[in-house]
C-alpha cells in the first residue's frame, strides 16, 4: 500500500507549527537555554536574500536558509504547506472556512491571473533591497507572523489569563499589527490561502526556485478521466487536472489523495506524464514593478528618516548597528521584543521615518534596558543587533567604552528636588553604573515660608551615563518623567554626539 502523503504532510505541518509556537514561548529569560529560537526566521530564504542584497553578507544563522533553497530546487515549493507557520495557519483557517459544494471548489481552486501579484511584489521588494532599502519584513511571512504573535497575539493571550509573562506586556500599536494578521486569516474566507497564492513574496521566491524541481506532482494522462476531483482541496491553485503550474504548487499532496483513479503521483516523470506549465508572469508588469521600486527609493531616502539625522526617540537596543546599516538589516520581526525582559523594546511608529516602521526602539516609560541583559542581540536573526557579551555591554572588557544607548537629561521644571523642593533621587538610587552616572549635590535653600530646606539635587555625568533609561522608568513623575533619555551619545553613531572629552 502506498503511504498516505497527505497524512505525512499534515504530520510535518503540525510538527513545524508546534515547533514555531514552542520556540516563541521559549524565547524569554526564564526558559532560554541557548535554543535556536529564531530558527524559522533563519530558515527563511527571503530574509537571507534581501539582507544579502542590502549588505552583501549571509549572516550567521541565515545560512540555514540554504537548506530550504536547496531542498526547494529538488522538491518544489514544499516550504509553504509543510514548514511555514503562516502557510499552515492559513491552510487550517481555509479548511475551516470553506464548506462549499465540490463543484464550486473545483471552480474556485483554478489558477487565476491575480496570483501573479506576488511576483511583482517580490520584484519591487528585491529591487529596493538591491538599492539598499530593506522593507521585506513588512510582507515576509515569517517576520510577519513572528511580529504578529510577539506584539499582538501573545500579549492578548496574557490578557486572557495565559500566564506567559509575569506582568502584562504592552506594545505600541500592537492591535494594528494583530489586525493585519487577522485580515490575512479572514481573506481565506473568500479564497483558499489568499495570502499564500496572491501576496506572499516568500511564496513567489520559492515559486521561482521551483522552476525545474526533479520531484513534482505528475499526472498520468491515460489514467486521468478529467473528473477534476483533484481540485477540491488544492492549496496552491496550480491546476493539477491539466498542465500543472509547478511554481504555484505547494506539494500539499491533497490532489493525489483525492484522485479516484490513481492518476497522480509525486516523483519523477513517467512515460505518460502530462506536461507542466512554466511560470506565468507578465514581463511588462514585472518591469513596471521594478521601475516603480527604483523610483520609490529616492523618494523614501529624500524623506526624513533616522538615518539622515538622529532622532531623540530613536533609541536602539544595545549592540545595534549604525542607523543606516541597522535599517538595511532589520526585518521588523520583533524577536528582540519577545526576549526583552522589561518590555522596553517597542515597534516604532514613524519616529524614524517610514523606513523604520516597526523597528525596535526603547520606550523608557514602559521599561528600561536591564544592565546585564544582552538577549536581544542573541535572538536577532539578521545581525541588526549584534550579539554582545555582558562584559562588552557593561564595559568590563573595555572600561572606557560600555555600550551607550543615549544620554539622560534632567527636566528641571518637573524634577522634585529641583522644582518642588521635595527630596527624591530615585534616579540616583537605581542608576546601575559604578560609580553612578547620576550624582547629587547637597544644598540648602529657603522655602516659601522662609524655613531652610536641605535637599539632594541630582545631576547626570554624561560620560558615565549609558542611556539605559532605568532613571526615566522609575522616576515618580508618572506621566512624563523628570529625567528622560534621548539618543544622543549612543555608541553606535559617530554623528549623534555631544561631549568632546571621554572619561
Amino acid at each position, binding site marked *: 500500500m502506498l503511504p498516505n502523503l497527505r497524512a505525512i504532510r499534515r504530520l510535518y505541518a503540525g510538527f513545524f507549527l508546534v515547533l514555531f509556537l514552542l520556540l516563541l514561548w521559549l524565547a524569554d529569560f526564564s526558559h532560554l537555554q541557548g535554543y535556536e529560537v529564531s530558527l524559522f526566521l533563519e530558515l527563511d530564504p527571503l530574509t537571507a536574500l534581501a539582507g544579502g542584497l542590502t549588505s552583501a553578507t549571509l549572516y550567521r544563522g541565515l545560512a540555514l536558509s540554504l537548506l530550504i533553497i536547496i531542498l526547494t530546487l529538488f522538491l518544489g515549493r514544499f516550504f509553504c504547506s509543510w514548514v511555514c507557520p503562516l502557510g499552515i495557519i492559513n491552510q487550517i483557517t481555509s479548511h475551516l472556512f470553506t464548506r462549499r459544494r465540490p463543484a464550486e471548489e473545483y471552480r474556485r481552486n483554478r489558477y487565476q491571473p491575480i496570483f501573479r501579484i506576488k511576483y511583482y511584489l517580490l520584484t519591487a521588494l528585491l529591487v529596493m533591497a538591491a538599492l539598499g532599502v530593506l522593507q521585506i519584513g513588512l510582507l515576509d511571512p515569517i517576520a510577519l507572523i513572528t511580529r504578529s504573535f510577539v506584539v499582538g497575539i501573545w500579549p492578548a493571550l496574557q490578557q486572557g489569563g495565559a500566564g506567559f509573562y509575569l506582568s502584562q506586556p504592552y506594545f505600541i500599536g500592537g492591535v494594528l499589527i494583530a489586525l493585519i494578521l487577522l485580515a490575512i486569516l479572514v481573506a481565506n474566507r473568500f479564497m483558499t490561502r489568499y495570502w499564500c497564492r496572491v501576496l506572499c513574496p516568500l511564496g513567489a521566491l520559492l515559486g521561482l526556485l521551483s522552476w525545474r524541481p526533479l520531484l513534482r506532482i505528475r499526472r498520468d494522462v491515460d489514467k486521468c478521466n478529467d473528473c477534476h476531483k483533484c481540485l477540491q482541496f488544492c492549496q496552491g491553485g496550480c491546476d493539477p487536472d491539466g498542465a500543472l503550474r509547478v511554481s504555484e504548487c505547494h506539494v500539499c499532496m491533497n490532489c493525489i489523495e483525492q484522485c479516484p483513479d490513481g492518476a497522480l503521483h509525486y516523483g519523477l516523470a513517467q512515460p505518460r506524464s502530462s506536461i507542466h506549465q512554466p511560470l506565468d508572469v507578465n514581463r511588462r508588469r514585472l518591469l513596471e514593478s521594478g521601475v516603480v521600486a527604483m523610483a520609490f527609493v529616492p523618494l523614501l531616502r529624500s524623506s526624513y528618516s533616522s538615518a539622515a539625522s538622529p532622532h531623540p526617540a530613536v533609541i536602539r537596543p544595545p549592540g545595534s548597528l549604525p542607523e543606516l546599516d541597522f535599517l538595511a538589516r532589520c526585518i521588523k520581526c520583533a524577536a528582540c521584543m519577545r526576549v526583552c525582559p522589561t518590555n522596553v523594546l517597542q515597534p516604532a511608529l514613524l519616529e524614524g521615518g517610514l523606513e523604520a516602521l516597526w523597528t525596535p526602539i526603547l520606550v523608557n516609560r514602559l521599561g528600561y534596558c536591564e*544592565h546585564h541583559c544582552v538577549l536581544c542581540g542573541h535572538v536577532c536573526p539578521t545581525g541588526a543587533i549584534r550579539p554582545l557579551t555582558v562584559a562588552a555591554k557593561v564595559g568590563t572588557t573595555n572600561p572606557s567604552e560600555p555600550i551607550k544607548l543615549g544620554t539622560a537629561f534632567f527636566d528641571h521644571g518637573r524634577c522634585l528636588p529641583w522644582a518642588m523642593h*521635595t527630596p527624591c533621587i530615585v534616579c540616583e*538610587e537605581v542608576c546601575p553604573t*559604578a560609580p553612578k552616572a547620576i550624582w*547629587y549635590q547637597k544644598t540648602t535653600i529657603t522655602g516659601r515660608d522662609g524655613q531652610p530646606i536641605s535637599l539632594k539635587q541630582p545631576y547626570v555625568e554624561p560620560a558615565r551615563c549609558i542611556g539605559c533609561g*532605568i532613571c526615566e522608568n522609575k522616576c*515618580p513623575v508618572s506621566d512624563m518623567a523628570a529625567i528622560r533619555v534621548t539618543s544622543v551619545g549612543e555608541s553606535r553613531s559617530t554623528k549623534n554626539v555631544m561631549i568632546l572629552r571621554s572619561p
Partner: protein
Amino acid sequence: MDENDKKRVGSRINKVEPAWSRRRLLVEAGITTATAAAVGAVGYWGYSSEAVRHAPQPILTLKDFRVAANTLYPSLVVVRGDAVAKMVAEALTLLGGMQRFIQRGDRVLLKPNVGWDRQPEQAANTNPEVVAAVAHLCREAGAAQVWVTDCSINDPQRSFVRSGIELAAQQAGATVKLPASNDFYLTNMHGSLLKNWPVARFFHQVDKVINLPVVKHHSLSGCTVAMKNWYGVLGGQRNRLHQDIHTSIVDLAAALRPTLTIVDATRVLKRNGPSGGSLDDVALENTLVAGLDEVALDAWALPLLELTVTQVPYLAMAEARGLGTANWRSLHWLERQLGSG
C-alpha cells in the same frame, strides 16, 4: 367578459391573520406588558447618580507575625565566622531554636532583599546561603511550606536567578513566589504617611514572616537594613516614598512586624548603594545579626557604614513610635565567634 380583462382587486400577497380569540389577545397583551415591566425594572435597579459602579474592594490589614517575648533568651545575637549555614544555625540556637518561632505546619515567608539583577559577590542582594540556611531550618522545625518573595526593582526573574536566591531557595525546599501584576492586595498600612497601598498577597497568606535583609549603603536614607527592607512588600508607585523616606520606613516597619529578623552582613556594600555593581565598594564582614528588634538591628549595622544614630533620622522616629530601641547594647545580647574568624 374575458377573465384576463377583469380588473384585479387586492394584493397578490394575500395570506391573512386568523382572528384573535380573547385568550390570544390576553396572552399577547400579557407578553408585551411583561416585557415593558422588565424594561422598567432594569431602569429602577440600574438607576444611579454615579457614572460607574465598582464592586467594593476589600482593604486588608497585615497581621502581627511576632511570637511571645521570652526573657530566657537574648533579643539580639551577633555571630561572626565564615561558614554561613553554621552561623545561621548558631544564631537560632542562641535565640532559643527555630521551634520557638515556627510551629509545625506553619507556612513561612522569607523576605530577603532581592532588589537587583546583581550577583552575590556584588552584595546588592541578601546572600543566597543565608536564605538557604534559614529555609532549611524552617523545614526542620516543621514548617509545611516555606515561601521566598520580594518585589524587585530590576526584572524580578533576572534578579532572583542572578542573585542565586532562586536556586538556593529551591534546593533548600522553599518555593519562590514572584509577584505578578495581579498579585497585590490593597492593604491599610495604618501609617502616618502610608495609608492604603498594594501589598504582595503572600504576606496575607502566611503564618510567619522572617525578614532577611542585607546591610547596604543607601544614598537617601543613609543605610538600608531591616526596616527599609519592607519597601519590598509594596507594589504600586512606591518610588514616591523617597519624598519622605524616613517616615515611610517607620510606617512600613510599624505595619509589618516580623517573627524574626536575620541581618546579612557577610558582605557589605559600603558605597554606591543600594544597587552597587563594583566589587571595590564591597567589604567582607562575615557577620550575621539576628534578633527581634529591627530598630536595634539597624542601629547595630550603622558602624559598618560609618554612620551614627543621629545621621539616620528614622531610628529616632521609630523609637518614638515604640518600635524598638536604637541603643542595642541596652538589650540582652550575645556575640559568638565561629571558626578561626
